């Protein structure tokens, strides 16, 4: 790792983006194509309050064979797995209900809808 401090910041920021992906960020349109949440009053971004109190970061360093210095970018690594990790955890927690998470973001209302549909026997297709 060339600059540990910058990389750690990138990872933490990526986790925040991932939390936004899972729980908050969505452009909502009505039937006529009007954007319904066109300001940050209604388009929700994660804030410091939505972040975990601490994030432990570890690195597995594997030099790239594709250039003389063996370097590669690492910035996006923080964001990519977060959404899937949360979705899988919720999926697992609600497996008794037959819930399978197939779309994001998950608001409490959306999750209620998915769980209610799964409970009615529509099962896994309900979330599609």
């Amino acid at each position: 790792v060339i600059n540990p401090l910058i990389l750690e910041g990138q990872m933490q920021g990526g986790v925040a983006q991932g939390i936004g992906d899972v729980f908050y960020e969505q452009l909502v349109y009505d039937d006529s194509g009007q954007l319904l949440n066109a300001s940050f009053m209604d388009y929700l971004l994660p804030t410091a309050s939505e972040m975990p109190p601490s994030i432990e970061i570890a690195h597995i360093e594997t030099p790239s064979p594709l250039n003389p210095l063996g370097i590669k970018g690492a910035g996006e690594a923080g964001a990519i797995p977060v959404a899937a990790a949360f979705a899988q955890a919720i999926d697992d927690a609600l497996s008794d209900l037959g819930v399978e998470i197939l779309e994001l973001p998950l608001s409490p209302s959306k999750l209620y809808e998915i769980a209610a549909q799964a409970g009615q026997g529509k099962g896994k297709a309900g979330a599609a």
Partner: protein
Amino acid sequence: MKPVAFAYHRPATLAEALDLLSEHGDEAKILAGGQSLVPAMNFRLAQPAVLIDINRVAGLAFIEPGKDGGLRIGATTRQRAAEQSELVAARAPLVRLALPHIAHVQIRNRGTVGGSVAHADPAAELPAVMLALGARMRAESRRGSRWIAAPDFFTGLLSTALAADEILAEIELGAVPARAGHGFAELARRSGDYALAGVAAQVALDAGGRVATASIALLGVGEGPVLARAAAAALVGQSPSDELIHAAADACTTKDIAPHGDVHASPAYRRHLAGVLTRRALAAALADARAPGAQ
């Protein structure tokens, strides 16, 4: 964004403020903490021609004992001041429970108790609490002073019984009943956001441990704060139990509310959530009422 142009007045006395309001009427808005009005103006959702800033009006910010164990809160009392007041904690425990749920500390440092009540946002905490507690609001105008009971005060979406020339000056709460308990529960998508739904409850037990009185008000599920009369009726005269709490919550969701949907929550989810939160608030209130040392 920036607001449209407006005239700005900063009176030092209530009489001066009332003169200005009488002169400008519907054209004017009262500026208290500005935590709702100013964002609405910046989005140009509100375009008052005249702002009357009452932050420097003397005698509107106070927390004082009321008659017979009650409490009086001046309209421009900061929410944070009320939150940290021992008098509020002792004489209006439900207000104390609800205040930390309002936005963030920085907003409560500026936002006022009266401003929240007069703005009457359906998702705001204080209007529901004042409705649950049967508060009385003192309205002042050049025509004189009058008291308005909470059920008459909240008249719909962002609207109150205040006339165009009236300023909310004071909120008065009665004494907490004997053997009373309080519960407040809400759910917001993010910390400090307006809640998707919330419930404020006060219950009092009689000497035999049955529910003597119950008062429950909801936020976020109607045009304004909603008094859950059927839920309260289901409780009165009964011995507290999990079954009773469930029955009251069912009465609330089936008879008392007709929630709307928006980008954050469907009507069905809001109804479900209102039931869950009613159970939580009632369980907390009943436990509080039965606790040793309850008032």
